[in-house]
């Protein structure tokens, strides 16, 4: 096979420009401050040299096949060329200080890039880049089963190291503080542990794949195993249930708070999933219903003089009313947009969302809604002497709400109403020609979606104790929309995965919050290019044939 140098260089330079960009915006330097494995590997390395590895890998992959040596050469060249832009930056910095314009191009960055050796250190930089590129190229060339094993192992180590906060927290809660010190040095994995982890994961994956490959008989026996499959499902269910139930004990207060946030967005996502995922109505003002729920809860239960409930309402009485108010506004705001489709609907709902926020902020409604000062002193829920005042207890509340919402979602999805929504999403005119009353169907989608959102808002208000108009900005709508797109439109497991990925993980990486939106954006672009249908796309249910039924071929007339 001939090596295509142009392609190789292109991938190298794409990697190089990315590395340059990440360096110049200060991401590399900030990441370098966080050790991953001992003091030798930090997150800066992961970002910078991970890019070189990817460049080598993608360049080699673009060549489809070839000898292992060729893979190595391609990877090496890609890696070396990926180092060029950043190297030029280092050299340029030597002669022209750029810090006045590019704040992040400073000595700390240069020291990191040159391994603290000044210009001669560039040689080492090239060496490292070339080596990583070469490894990337080789990685593409090795047989699939080895590649899977090594890849999973590396990814596993990287995840444990990057999210060490989570891991150390769990270890502390389960086995005490001392156990953490066996595996971690401050926040970084000990090198030996990292190596053991890598080998363990790789070996596990390798063995599992081997066993699967050697057991083709299992496939043929599948129909017989229906009960076994069911049992497996039940066991999985019980395990997940148990994990969800004990999560706060394992995770502790801070992570329970993160889980609460995830749960809140799962609720929002489930509601929006009905509106956008099932019914195909692109709603960008979804946060409005969240605000209705929160404000209803706030105004009915607050102990300040804004209270509208006359003191009779506690959390549990106000909760259904908050949901009801949201549903009502869902229908009310649904009416004017009934005849709008696609982009037009998106723009109008966007406007609605903003109007609600601005009304809450306005002086005009200040006597009722509190204006910019918001609604303060919203009491925490209490039942049978149990006070929901901690993140752990609120987690259970939001978990229960999310479970209810998921249950209702699933049941409706599999019913006539679910089919009505999907038919409307696919083709509104034809849906109407099938006898579907699209007005009613649309309003139901808006109403139920708004109800879930209002439920989330009410719990949110009780958790925080104070609500302010700026908590209900456009970003919440965008977040909810992004998470259902990332997870997979119309997919309920997708909503959960999306919420964990876009709400949970950023909370765990608070140190790097400045770059949160950048990473978010990159993630979305990569996602849309590679998996436009989302992480866990909605599955097609087998309806015609029951499992195990034999398919007779269609008769040809």
């Amino acid at each position: 096979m001939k090596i295509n140098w142009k392609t190789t260089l292109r991938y190298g330079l794409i990697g190089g420009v990315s590395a340059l960009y990440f360096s110049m915006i200060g991401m590399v330097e900030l990441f370098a401050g966080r050790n991953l494995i001992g003091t030798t590997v930090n997150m800066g390395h992961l970002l910078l040299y991970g890019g070189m590895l990817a460049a080598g890998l993608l360049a080699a992959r673009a060549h489809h096949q070839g000898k292992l040596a060729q893979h190595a050469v391609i990877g090496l060249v890609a890696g070396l060329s990926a180092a060029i832009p950043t190297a030029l930056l280092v050299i340029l910095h030597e002669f022209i200080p750029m810090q006045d314009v590019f704040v992040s191009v400073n000595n700390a960055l240069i020291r990191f890039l040159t391994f603290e050796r000044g210009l001669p250190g560039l040689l080492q930089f090239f060496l490292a880049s070339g080596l990583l590129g070469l490894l990337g190229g080789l990685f593409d060339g090795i047989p699939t089963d080895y590649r899977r094993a090594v890849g999973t192992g590396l990814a596993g180590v990287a995840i444990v190291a990057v999210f060490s906060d989570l891991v150390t927290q769990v270890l502390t809660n389960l086995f005490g503080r001392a156990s953490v010190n066996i595996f971690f040095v401050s926040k970084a994995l000990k090198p030996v542990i990292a190596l053991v982890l890598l080998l363990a994961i790789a070996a596990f994956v390798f063995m599992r794949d081997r066993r699967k490959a050697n057991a083709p008989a299992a496939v043929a026996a599948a129909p017989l195993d229906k009960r076994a499959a069911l049992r497996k499902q039940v066991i999985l269910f019980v395990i997940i249930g148990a994990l969800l139930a004990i999560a706060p004990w394992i995770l502790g207060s801070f992570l329970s708070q993160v889980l609460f946030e995830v749960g809140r967005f799962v609720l929002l996502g489930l509601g929006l999933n009905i509106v956008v995922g099932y019914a195909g109505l692109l709603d960008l003002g979804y946060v409005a219903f969240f605000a209705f729920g929160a404000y209803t809860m706030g105004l009915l239960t607050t102990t300040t003089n804004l209270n509208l409930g006359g003191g009779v309402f506690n959390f549990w009485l106000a909760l259904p009313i908050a949901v009801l108010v949201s549903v009502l506004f869902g229908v009310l705001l649904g009416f004017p947009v009934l005849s709008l489709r696609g982009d037009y609907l998106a723009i109008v709902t966007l406007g609605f969302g903003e109007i609600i926020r601005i009304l809450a902020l306005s002086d005009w409604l200040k006597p009722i809604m509190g204006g910019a000062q918001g609604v303060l002193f919203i009491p925490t829920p209490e039942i049978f002497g149990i006070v929901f005042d901690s993140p752990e207890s609120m987690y259970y509340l939001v978990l229960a709400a999310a479970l209810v919402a998921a249950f209702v979602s699933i049941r409706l999805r599999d019913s006539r109403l679910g089919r009505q929504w999907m038919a409307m999403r696919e083709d509104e005119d034809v849906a109407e020609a099938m006898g579907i009353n699209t007005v009613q169907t649309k309003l139901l989608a808006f109403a139920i979606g708004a109800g879930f959102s209002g439920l989330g808002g009410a719990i949110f208000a009780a958790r925080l104790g104070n609500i302010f108009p700026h908590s209900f900005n456009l970003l919440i709508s965008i977040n909810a929309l992004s998470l259902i797109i990332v997870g997979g439109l119309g997919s309920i497991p997708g909503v959960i995965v999306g919420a964990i990925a876009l709400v949970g993980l950023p909370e765990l990486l608070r140190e790097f919050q400045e770059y949160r939106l950048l990473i978010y954006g990159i993630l979305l672009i990569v996602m849309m290019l590679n998996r436009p249908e989302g992480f866990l796309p909605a599955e097609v249910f087998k309806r015609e044939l029951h499992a195990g039924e034999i398919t007779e071929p269609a008769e040809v007339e």
Partner: protein
Amino acid sequence: MANILTARNVTKTFGGLVAVNDFTLDIAENSISSVIGPNGAGKTTFFNCVTGFYKVDEGEIIFNSEQIQNRRTDVVTRKGISRTYQNIRLFSNMSAIENILVGQHPRLKTFWAEAVWKSKRFRNEELTALEEARRLLRFVGLQGMGDTLARNLPYGAQRRLEIARALASLPKLLLLDEPTAGMNPNETGEMTRFIQHLRDELGITILLIEHDMRVVMGISEQVTVLDYGSKIAEGSPKEIQSNPRVIEAYLGRGAASGLKAGKR
């Protein structure tokens, strides 16, 4: 035999363009009739007027001795008219059987929220609907393809699925818009027999728009010819074939004397 559908002096204009002009049509119950005419003659516009997708400007449409012009599409469908489309319009990201289930919508009666607690009524209705959908799949010869996404079905199967979906609402009148468009002669023959079978077996009245003259002349009992929105001829296939105005509309002035109709 009674007329199941009567259109009286129907006129539909788009701005200055008169798409359907003072059109009158009677469809006898349990018949197969065709509307033909050159491209842009207003055939599909007429279908859209019947199903309520377009509001008519003048005239009335009577179905089963009930005025249905300018009613909402879903209301018209529930009264017993269903249709297929010239360019197949299935719910492409839903499976074949789900498409048919959607088609059954007008027949399902349970309250939507019953699905949440799965009331007995809901479960029974869903089971019956599923059974009926399977039956319809078999009826159009698509058994085994029910769980395939509609967009992944082969062309001919999509056409038949669209008909199955239209049949699912138990219509009394079925409007078929070019059911054999894009089919080879073999498939066309199959479809023709299938349409006849529909009428004979299920007793459904069929009105079709068709360009393939072999289909039109082969199965229609009545043919109506539209040109520039106006009816220019009506009668049995034989009468239409020898009508000079029809030949003129299709082939232009002067051709009428030289060529025989029936060849495209």
